[in-house]
């Protein structure tokens, strides 16, 4: 206490000196001072500081001075990314090479990098709302896409807001770029269809690789972002159309967003031009003819006629000149911004497909119908080959037929109940006598088992019951019923209480098969191929649509040619002549079923009508509908074109299908289409 007091008071010098001396001896009263112990401890702390900073500076020196150039290079490499440059897709042209069927157009896509959106929730929502409003995109869909991308952890790719934006929208956004962080405008190519719904199902459409396709296409070098053909020609000849991708370097930030223009390092090679055997003019004529046929059917009271197909093919080499399928759709829905609403409007998804009668179905290749009377030439050939009938012997054509061996005495009716005369084979074909062929069918049934099933054997020999291997896309095999087929089809597991009876091949099965009914199912393309074989003297052609593939500079790309027409083994040309005569009489004998359509046609056409009963399910009606068929070729002496027409629920072959076929021939031979008097016949 005393010492403190003294320090506060001004003391005489002598006293203060004493105090200081005393303080030196008595540490307890001395003011706080640096003891050796504290000094040691501060020295230890200083040592820590020195060691710590020595470590930091050494490390800094090592990183920046010794290894600086290495890290500088690394930082430089960090920001440069090599990106794939998708090549412009090749064109699809018709057989002339002048009519472009599918090409590309340059569009600007609006893309959004979710990582570039504002961090603050309210601002983010506001930007998305504004963007959705301007681009006329559903904001919910936009949000869903962002969330989906986040779910897979993909931060390096933008979301496509609109793959194809109108110029006004782009200008508006460009002027307000600062208000939309994360938005980029990217130019790209999309498919363009100058002819609209032209052979739509045949040409197919393109789309991003699907997860299902990726394993196989990935092995072929395609990237997950590539746009490839999904159906039709686009898919079949994708390897030619796609081209070779190029490479470009682009500066990116840490999230992969581009921060500079692309610098091409490898030029992309545009896809090759695929030239089809399709004749654009004939295709349009066929499409119009199909609509005309459907309309004709409706005009004659066939209210349910709403679809069909036309195949026009060269009978000599199998090149397809026209392939129409109705109903059809606008392929441009698959370019640009694909929305469910657009697809629904075209009947491409879900229930809308049913409502619109499946526009995406290529009825020429992938739909099967009972052929009806158009199948009779095959029965005729098979019967002649198996010596069941003689070509010019007369067999009764009556109103009804009962198989003599049939104990159930089932009565089979002729389409014309009033006929009762003997007919040779050409006449039976020309007038399409059912009872004549019922008898032939029963003849096949009565054959001893060691003769096998020759009718089915000949059907297969002419290409029925298996896919035609057409290059336009996978086609369906159809069905040629056999004893084995029925046996497999009906079993205790098939849910049919009468399976033990239904599985047996009965006389009626052979009799129905002989007139192209029963379980028999064929595609329009298979029928065309069969009539081509009749026309060309018994050679089975391979239908195809590819003519050649050209490089952008015009040189041809080697392709595998389709298999050459192959003579049908064991076919007697003399028998074929009889059938050809029958088909000619069908169009030129006044009693022939399509005489009214082709009798006065300037070019000699031979052909056969068909009216096939098929159980159909329509709105308000379930029962047997008449599938209207006509198949034939011309000119008869040197056939250049074979045409097959089927019109769903179109009624009689002579009223709907034959007039449509006549229009196709008229366009092909540059003759005016006749004003047709429609006749009511099978």
């Amino acid at each position, binding site marked *: 206490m005393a010492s403190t007091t003294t320090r506060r008071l001004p003391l005489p010098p002598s006293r203060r000196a004493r105090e200081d001396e005393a303080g030196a001896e008595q540490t*307890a009263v001395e*003011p706080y001072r640096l003891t050796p112990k504290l000094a040691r401890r501060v020295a230890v702390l200083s040592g820590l*500081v020195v060691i710590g900073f020595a470590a930091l500076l050494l490390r800094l020196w090592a990183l920046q001075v010794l290894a600086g150039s290495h890290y500088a290079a690394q930082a430089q490499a960090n920001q440069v990314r090599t990106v794939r440059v998708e090549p412009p897709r090749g064109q699809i042209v018709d057989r002339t090479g002048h009519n472009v069927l599918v090409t590309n157009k340059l569009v600007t896509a609006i893309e959004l990098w979710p990582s570039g959106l504002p961090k603050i929730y309210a601002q983010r929502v506001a930007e998305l709302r504004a963007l959705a409003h301007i681009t006329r995109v559903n904001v919910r869909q936009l949000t869903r896409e962002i969330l989906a991308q986040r779910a897979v952890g993909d931060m390096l790719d933008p979301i496509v807001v609109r793959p194809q934006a109108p110029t006004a929208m782009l200008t508006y956004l460009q002027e307000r770029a600062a208000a939309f962080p994360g938005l980029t405008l990217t130019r790209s190519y999309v498919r363009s269809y100058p002819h609209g719904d032209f052979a739509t199902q045949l040409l197919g459409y393109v789309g991003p690789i699907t997860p299902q396709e990726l394993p196989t296409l990935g092995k072929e070098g395609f990237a997950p972002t590539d746009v490839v053909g999904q159906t039709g020609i686009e898919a079949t000849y994708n390897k030619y159309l796609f081209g070779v991708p190029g490479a470009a370097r682009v500066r990116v930030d840490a999230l992969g967003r581009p921060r500079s223009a692309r610098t091409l390092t490898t030029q992309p090679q545009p896809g090759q031009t695929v030239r089809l055997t399709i004749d654009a003019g004939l295709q349009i004529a066929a499409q119009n003819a199909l609509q005309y046929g459907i309309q004709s059917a409706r005009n004659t009271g066939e209210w349910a006629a709403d679809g069909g197909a036309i195949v026009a093919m060269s009978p000599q080499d199998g090149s397809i000149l026209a392939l129409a399928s109705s109903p059809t759709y606008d392929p441009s829905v698959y370019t640009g911004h694909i929305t469910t609403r657009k697809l629904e409007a075209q009947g491409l998804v879900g229930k809308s497909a049913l409502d619109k009668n499946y526009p995406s179905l290529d009825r020429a290749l992938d739909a099967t119908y009972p052929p009806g009377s158009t199948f009779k030439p095959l029965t005729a050939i098979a019967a002649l080959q198996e010596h069941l009938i003689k070509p010019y012997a007369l067999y009764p054509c009556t109103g009804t037929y009962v198989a003599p061996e049939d104990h159930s005495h089932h009565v089979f009716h002729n389409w014309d109940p009033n006929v009762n005369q003997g007919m040779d084979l050409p006449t039976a074909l020309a007038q399409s006598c059912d009872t004549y062929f019922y008898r032939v069918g029963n003849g096949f049934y009565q054959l001893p088992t060691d003769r096998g099933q020759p009718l089915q054997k000949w059907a297969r020999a002419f290409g029925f019951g298996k896919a035609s291997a057409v290059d336009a896309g996978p086609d369906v095999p159809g069905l040629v019923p056999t004893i084995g087929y029925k046996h497999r089809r009906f079993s205790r597991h098939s849910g049919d209480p009468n399976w033990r009876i239904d599985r047996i091949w009965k006389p009626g099965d052979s009799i129905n098969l002989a007139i192209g009914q029963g379980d028999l199912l064929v595609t329009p393309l298979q029928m065309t191929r069969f009539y081509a074989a009749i026309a060309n003297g018994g050679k089975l052609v391979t239908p195809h649509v590819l003519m050649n593939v050209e490089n952008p500079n015009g040189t041809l790309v080697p392709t595998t040619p389709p298999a050459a027409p192959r003579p049908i083994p064991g076919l007697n040309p003399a028998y074929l002549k009889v059938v050809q005569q029958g088909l000619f009489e069908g169009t030129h004998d006044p009693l022939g079923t399509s005489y009214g359509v082709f009798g006065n046609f300037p070019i000699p056409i031979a052909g056969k009508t068909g009216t096939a009963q098929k159980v159909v399910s329509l709105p308000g009606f379930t029962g047997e509908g008449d599938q209207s068929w006509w198949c034939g070729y011309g000119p008869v002496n040197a056939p250049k074109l074979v045409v097959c027409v089927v019109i769903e629920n179109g009624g009689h072959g002579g009223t709907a299908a034959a007039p449509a076929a006549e229009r196709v021939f008229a366009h092909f031979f540059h003759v005016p289409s006749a004003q047709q008097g429609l006749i009511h016949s099978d």
Partner: protein
Amino acid sequence: MLEYAGSQRAGLRNEREAPHLLSVVRSIDWILLAGVGALVLVGLWGVAGVTKFAVPNDPTYYLNRQILYAAAGGVALVVAALVDPDLYRRYWRAIFIGTATVIAFVLLIGHAARGSTRWISLGFFTFQPSEFGKLLFVLALAGMLAERQRAVSTWDTTLRVVGLGLLPVTLVFAQPDLGTALVYMAALGAMLFVAGAPWKHLAVLGGLVLVVAVGVLWAGPAAGVSVLKGYQQQRLTCFTHPSTCSVAARYNVEQAITTVGSGEIRGRGPNGATQVNLGFLPESQTDFIFAGFAEQRGFIGAALLLGLYLFVLWRGLRVVTVARDLFSAVVAGGIVVALLFQIFVNVGMTMGIAPITGIPLPFVSVGGSSLIANLAAMGVLLAIHARGRVSRGRRASLSARG
């Protein structure tokens, strides 16, 4: 045991006369103040470069805010330099309870928001109490040590101080803010060390820390007990076992090292600094700002910054030696070591020689709380120095006159 002038009498504080304000100003450590001023300027320079492209079309957005914070920090520094540190010693309990309450309050808000929260939003400014806590915690524990100065070498004191100190450490750790909790622990150790706790105590405490660290990092996870959050655990084990570290976990530190290295000697400048501008460097404005600074200003700039830190730390340690009493010495020691720890861990983590923990770089990282709290701490150092010098100066002048 260290001795100081008041050791003999408890009533000393009431009789000690406050030095005249003018003499305090005159005896300011101008060298330390100049060092701190230079640090703040270099920090603003760094912020200006690193945040130049952070906000589109507004290159000075962060710089302007940071200048405002620096000004506020300057005020805090002046106030702290003028306040007699003895005041803190007298009211250390109130300081401790207040600090702990605010940190606990933040923790409660965080739990209510079902996430981690280190901030209290004051509208224009988000206030981060744990940053100010660094200083307040040091003041409070130093007060406790000063009160028990006679028994400072007993186990009783050591355990009580550690026990009390662990409360805010636990609160901050639970926020969760592992980095700041570690800073508190470093400061706690430093204060015991400066106060004169026996080596044996320090050795035992050091051993305990080691055992806990081993337990948390290796034994705990092996036994299925995880004290740390997954990411904290991963960062620390990444540092000790880089080979077992996943690519994603290594990404940050590898980008930081590349960023530092790419600066080379002269730096790439704010416009050419692709690692910062293109976002390759994570947290470039806060935790990893040293890397961004090193990229833009090179070895020359980074070494200058480290040199300034070294300078300030040297002057800070000097303040420990001129302190007027045990309390002041302990406070100075705690402040200096907390600063050293933050600098070493932050700079070290950007260069891969310290584990990644979320600690801002003092005086440089963007953020008001950190800058203001650090400047206030420097103010306390200046106050301690000034009063230490004043008392010695008066003693010297008295002696001279005698």
